[in-house]
């Protein structure tokens, strides 16, 4: 055999195969003795499994005075144990840190004159940036630490004086709930003085929870006391219990937290779409199976779920559920009314990674079905949140629904849909986008097509914005009020993490330029400076997204995919 025809085979690495950091054996010995792990079962603490978790899923990270460790609103996939020093956590009730302090872009809407001025002031050079304005923002700066760039607070004593925080010392854990549930961080944490932390990625946390009952209990308690109450209080299903704290506490006590699906599967949405429905269904873990008796109602906390029912030799997708929506209520209510257990009429499957809360049947019967004064309200709320059985009345065709799930566009809160039957290809949408962004369009009028509907490659401002995971400077963030995922051009270091994480090809990396068209280069490496760009929903413009307002033929719409009624109406106009 000639050397040219020789085939070399290797195993494709998965993220989990790559250790988070390099920790030598001596350091692992020291870590095992940390106060942070004093609550673990002594036998487990001595085991090889625990050692392996530390070797593979953790790394030691040092932060300097003022370094931001976590930012409120960021998405992250790791938690931190304090090894040395003190960190401070902002207290939301006492007023949160302003956006500028966290190195984020402040949304300043243009006034009428500034809006009109775009007509003549937009630059003709693509991706022009005035780097002279890239000076330090208010209160924050960037600094390099090893391979990382970090945002830091300049005046920690002043911050501590001005805002109320709580301090966490050696052995304490933070960031675990957001990491396990892949939800947003709820508070900002920064270092006071020099701090050493043990960062543990979510796989390590998951394994610790599986193998150590004490640790699981600790996380469970932390979840119930911190996250669950806030989550339940925000769900329409529980609105009737908002005043009844005692009942809400009982529900919280009985609730069970679960996660399904592969956390790291986010980057393979396109591959999944190509595999086809049958394969997709086979790959999606079943949360509740059709024909089984319900253990309780399942509430989606984060991620998306597919509701399907058996149809001949396959499964027909009936709908998808988004965060805050409920599965299994009707069967429990029907069973309670007839005194006969009613099996589930549909199956529930995890699309990608999902975290959910199960409220056991007895609690559902007590607080939703039996609770006479609020019965109708509870039912109505539960029904409103359970879109599944009502789907047939929405007139969304089965194949269109399948397409939306397969392409994972149901993740979008501002998905750009184009009706090609009405689109005259005039590109007024692209031109308007360019006009609103200094002549640089932030989307491409291309994307997957089903029948006459195109899902354009524009940022969908996802419910589960995987692009935000691992941004080293927090430059990409979600605006808490507007819900817009946006990039701060000043703090973006062009690392492409967000662009690689985005499964929808909605983030483009661009080389920035001077007014004369020449590339702006790094003063040390002489390489062009790169920035991440994407749709920001024209958050600084008067009147909202220019693309939608510029379409004369009602062909383009920005759609919240959880609003299935609106989607059906739009499709059946």
């Amino acid at each position, binding site marked *: 055999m000639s050397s040219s025809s020789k085939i070399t085979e290797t195993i494709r690495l998965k993220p989990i195969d790559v250790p988070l950091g390099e920790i030598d054996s001596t350091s692992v010995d020291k870590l095992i003795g940390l106060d942070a792990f004093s609550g673990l079962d002594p036998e487990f603490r001595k085991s090889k499994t625990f050692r392996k978790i530390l070797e593979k899923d953790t790394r030691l990270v040092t932060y300097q005075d003022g370094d931001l460790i976590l930012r409120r609103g960021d998405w992250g996939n790791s938690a931190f144990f304090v090894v040395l020093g003190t960190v401070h956590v902002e207290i939301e009730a006492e007023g949160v840190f302003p956006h500028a302090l966290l190195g984020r872009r402040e949304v300043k809407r*243009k006034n*009428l004159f500034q*809006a*009109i001025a*775009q*007509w003549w002031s937009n630059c003709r050079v693509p991706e022009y940036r005035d780097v002279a304005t890239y000076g330090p923002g208010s209160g924050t700066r960037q600094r390099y630490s090893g391979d990382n760039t970090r945002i830091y607070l300049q005046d920690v004593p002043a911050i501590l004086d001005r805002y109320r925080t709580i301090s966490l010392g050696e052995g304490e854990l933070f960031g675990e709930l957001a990491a396990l549930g892949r939800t947003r961080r709820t508070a900002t944490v920064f270092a006071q003085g020099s701090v050493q932390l043990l960062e543990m990625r979510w796989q390590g946390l998951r394994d610790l929870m599986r193998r150590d009952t004490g640790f699981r209990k600790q996380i469970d308690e932390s979840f119930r006391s911190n996250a669950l109450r806030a989550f339940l209080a925000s769900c329409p299903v529980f609105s009737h219990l908002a005043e009844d704290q005692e009942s809400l506490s009982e529900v919280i006590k009985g609730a069970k937290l679960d996660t399904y699906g592969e956390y790291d599967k986010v980057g393979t949405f396109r591959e999944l779409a190509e595999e086809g429905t049958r394969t997709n269904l086979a790959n999606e873990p079943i949360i509740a199976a059709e024909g089984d008796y319900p253990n309780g109602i399942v509430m989606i906390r984060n991620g998306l779920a597919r509701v399907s029912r058996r149809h001949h030799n396959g499964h027909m997708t009936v709908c998808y559920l988004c965060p805050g929506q409920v599965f299994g209520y009707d069967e429990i209510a029907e069973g309670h009314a007839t005194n006969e257990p009613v099996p589930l009429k549909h199956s529930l499957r995890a699309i990608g990674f999902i975290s959910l809360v199960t409220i056991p049947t007895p609690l559902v019967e007590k607080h939703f079905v039996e609770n006479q004064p609020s019965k109708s309200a509870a039912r109505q709320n539960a029904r409103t949140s359970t879109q599944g059985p009502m789907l047939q009345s929405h007139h969304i065709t089965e194949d269109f629904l399948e397409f939306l799930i397969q392409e994972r566009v149901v993740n979008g809160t501002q998905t750009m849909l184009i009706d*090609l*039957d*009405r*689109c*005259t*290809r*005039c*590109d*007024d949408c692209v*031109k*308007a986008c360019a*006009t*609103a962004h200094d002549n640089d369009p932030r989307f491409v*009028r*291309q994307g997957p*097509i089903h029948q*006459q509907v*195109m899902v354009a490659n524009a940022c969908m401002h996802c419910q589960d914005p995987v692009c935000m995971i691992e941004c080293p400077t927090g430059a990409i963030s979600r605006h808490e009020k507007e819900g817009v995922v946006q990039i701060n051009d000043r703090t973006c270091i062009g690392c492409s993490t967000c662009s690689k994480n985005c499964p929808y090809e909605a983030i483009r990396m661009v080389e920035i330029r001077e007014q004369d068209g020449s590339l702006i280069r790094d003063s040390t490496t002489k390489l062009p400076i790169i920035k991440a760009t994407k749709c920001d929903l*024209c958050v600084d*413009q*008067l*009147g909202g997204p*220019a693309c*939608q*307002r*510029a*379409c*004369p*033929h*009602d*062909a383009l719409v920005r759609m919240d995919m959880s609003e299935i009624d*609106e989607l059906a*109406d*739009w499709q*059946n*106009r």
Partner: protein
Amino acid sequence: MRTFASRRWAGLTVVLLASALLIVGNQLLWLSFQRPVYISGWLLLAMVVFLAAFNLRKKMPFLPIGSASTWLQVHIYVGLLSIVVFGLHLELRVPNGLFEVCLACCFAIVALSGILGLILSRVLAARLAAREGEILWDRIPRMRGLISRDTERLALDCLAETESAAVVDYYMRRLRSYFAGPRYFWPHLMNSSRPLRKLLSEIEAHKRYLNDAEKEFMIRIAERVKVKDDLDYHYSLQAVLKYWLFLHVPLTYALIMFSVVHVMLIHAF
């Protein structure tokens, strides 16, 4: 959400009612021995200026002055109503004088091109959607160049591999010009696939002079002929969708200028 059909009916009803009111008003003015022609003239000029403002709105997407789709709806129905006002202004007579004839012709062309443009927008957009694939207008020349070079390379490869000039000769004689630029504009516009079928049939007929290896190359070339046909189809339809405005918009500005001169002449003499 309102359906397109209900919106269309509502718009047409409003136009019909407004037209009826205008006609009745015009008759009442006649009966009271007044000249409604001044009123209808000024109304028509105001309407034309308003209709032209839609183009300005399209150039200012950053201003919160209503969505372009709302503007287009109003543009369509005000445009239809302006035809009624135009009829009333002319008093349903053929205008006399060269200038008035030019002015009337200008209005007629603008109005007809508008109606035609609307129909084309609805019909051709749906036809493009029905065709497989979505091609961006700006990328068509580059894609055409790629297909052309790819096909030429195939023909040359065939020559090198089979040492027979049958395919490359046919390519040079029949296909090179086909791949060089957009072809069959009108047949594509009329939704006729006759030229493509004719070309494919010719290719099929030419296969009888080829050996197996050459036939393989010819099959691959025929695939590229189909891809080029799709590209030409998109080019033809998208060109019409883009360029009809080059008649409608400049003539609107000409119409406004003519109208201003017309008003000045009327009031001066």
